[in-house]
C-alpha cells in the first residue's frame, strides 16, 4: 500500500510539474467561460446552453487529458529509460502500473472538479441554481474517464508509438458512444456470422451511453431508467478487466 501511494505520488508530482495539463485546463476554463457568449445568442435557452457547453467541454478536455496522460504514462518512461530506475527497485510491476493509473485518475479528477467549479461559478453569476443532476453527470463523466484511461494504458503497452495509441484510444471512445448503433446494426443483419461478430463487438466495447447522463438531463426518467449502482459496478468491473490485462502484459514484457 505504501509503495502504491509512493507511485501515485510520483505520478501526481510528475503531472504537476508538466505544463501540458495546465495548458489544457486553462484552455478548458476559457472555453467554459465562452459558453457565456454562446448563451447570449441562444435566446431564452441561456441556462441550458451554459450547462451543455460546460459539461461537454469538461468531458472533452478530461478525455484529452486522460488519453494524452495514459499514453505517456508508460511509453514516455520507456523512451526516457527512466522505467529501468523504477523497476530495479523492490517494487512489483502490478503495484507500479496500478500506482501510475490511480495517480493519473486523481490528477484528471482534480482537473474535472476545477472545471466544474468554473461552470458552477458561471451559472451562479448568471443567477441560475445548482441541480443535483449536474453533479451526477460529472460523476458519470469521471466513470468514462476511468474506463478510457485504462484502455489508453493497455493500448500503450501493446503499441510502440504514442500516436498509434492515441488514435486507437480515440476510436474506442467514438465506438463506445456508438454502442447503441452497433446493437441496432446487429438487429438488422441477417447473416448469422456477421450478426454474431457484431454482437461480440457489442459486448467488448465500452458502453459509454450508460454514462452519458449529461445528454439525458431533460429526458423523462421513465424513458431511460438508469440504475446508478449497476452503472458504477459496470465501470469498476470493466476497468478492472482492462487493468488486469495491462498487468498481465506488463509482467510479460521484457525491458
Amino acid at each position, binding site marked *: 500500500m505504501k509503495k502504491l501511494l509512493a507511485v501515485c505520488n510520483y505520478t501526481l508530482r510528475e503531472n504537476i510539474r508538466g505544463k501540458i495539463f495546465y495548458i489544457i485546463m486553462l484552455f478548458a476554463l476559457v472555453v467554459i467561460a465562452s459558453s457565456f457568449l*454562446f448563451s447570449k*445568442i*441562444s*435566446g*431564452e*435557452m*441561456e441556462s*441550458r*446552453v451554459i450547462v*451543455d*457547453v460546460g459539461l*461537454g467541454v469538461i*468531458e*472533452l478536455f478530461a478525455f484529452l487529458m486522460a488519453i494524452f496522460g495514459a499514453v505517456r504514462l508508460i511509453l514516455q518512461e520507456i523512451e526516457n529509460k527512466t522505467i529501468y530506475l523504477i523497476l530495479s527497485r523492490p517494487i512489483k510491476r502490478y503495484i507500479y502500473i496500478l500506482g501510475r493509473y490511480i495517480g493519473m485518475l486523481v490528477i484528471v479528477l482534480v482537473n474535472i472538479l476545477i472545471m466544474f467549479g468554473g461552470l458552477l461559478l458561471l451559472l451562479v453569476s448568471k443567477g441560475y441554481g445548482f441541480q443535483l443532476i449536474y453533479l451526477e453527470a460529472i460523476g458519470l463523466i469521471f466513470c468514462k474517464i476511468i474506463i478510457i484511461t485504462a484502455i489508453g494504458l493497455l493500448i500503450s503497452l501493446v503499441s510502440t508509438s504514442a500516436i498509434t495509441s492515441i488514435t486507437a484510444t480515440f476510436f474506442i*471512445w*467514438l465506438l*463506445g*458512444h*456508438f454502442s*447503441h*448503433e452497433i446493437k*441496432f446494426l446487429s438487429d438488422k443483419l441477417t447473416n448469422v456470422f456477421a450478426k454474431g461478430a457484431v454482437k461480440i463487438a457489442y*459486448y467488448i466495447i465500452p*458502453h*459509454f*451511453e*450508460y454514462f*452519458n447522463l*449529461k*445528454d*439525458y*438531463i*431533460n*429526458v*423523462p426518467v*421513465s*424513458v*431511460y*431508467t*438508469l*440504475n446508478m449502482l*449497476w*452503472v458504477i*459496478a*459496470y465501470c469498476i*468491473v*470493466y476497468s*478492472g*478487466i482492462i487493468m*488486469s*490485462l495491462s*498487468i*498481465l502484459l506488463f*509482467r*510479460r514484457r521484457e525491458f
Partner: protein
Amino acid sequence: MKNFFLLFIIVVLVVLLINIQQNIEKSFNYPFKPVTTLQIKEATFVNFWGVLLGLRRLSADLAWIDVLQYYGTHFEEDEHEDGKHHHEGHRHIQWGEYKELLSHCQVVIRLDPYFKYAYLYGAGALAFNHERFDQAIELLEEGVANNPEYWRFHLYLGAIVARQKGEYQKVIPLLEQVVFAPETPMMLRSILAQIYEKQGNYHKARLVWEYILSTATEEHYIKRAKSHLEKLNNI
C-alpha cells in the same frame, strides 16, 4: 502461476461484466433514435461529430443557435405604426417567408427529441407569425409522439387548430393554460398579450406584459414589454 491466477480473475470479471450489462439493459432504454435513422435534411459536420462524441444535447443547442440565426430574434411584428390594416388576430406578415424554418427546427428536435422549447417556438412561429398551420401541426405532432407525457403540446395543438379556423375565442383559453409555464417561449406570451390588447382586455394584457418584463432575459422583449405597459398605462 501468478499469471494463471490473473487470467482466472479476468474470466470471473468478464462473466460478472456480462451479468451487470444484462441487468443494466433490463431497465435502460437508450432514449435516442439511432443516428443512421435520423431524418435530418441538412446534417452538418458539427451535428455529425457532436453525436459521434456523445454530445447530442450540445449538437442540438448548436442547431438551435442556427435556427435563431436563420430566423432572427427580432422577428416579431409589433404594432402597425405604418397604418397598414390588420384585424383582430390577423398578423400582417412583413418579414421574409423563412421557408426552411420547419426543416431547421426538425434538425434540433431530431437531435434532441426532448427539447420542448424548440417544438413550442417553431410551432408558434410557423402558426402565428407565418400562418403555416400544417407545418406547425406537423412539428407539434412529432413533439407529442416523442413526449407523450407533456400535455401542454395538446393545448398548443388545440390553439393552432382554432387559430387556423379563425376561432380566436377558442385560441385564448388554450393559450392561457400554458402562458405561464416555464417552457413557454416569450414569443407566445407576447402574442397572447397582443390578442388581449386587440380585444380590449387591457387588464389581462397588462398581467402578461408584466410577467414578460419580470422574466425576460432578452433585451428586445424587455423593451417591448416596457413600451406596451407604458401605452396601457395611458389608456
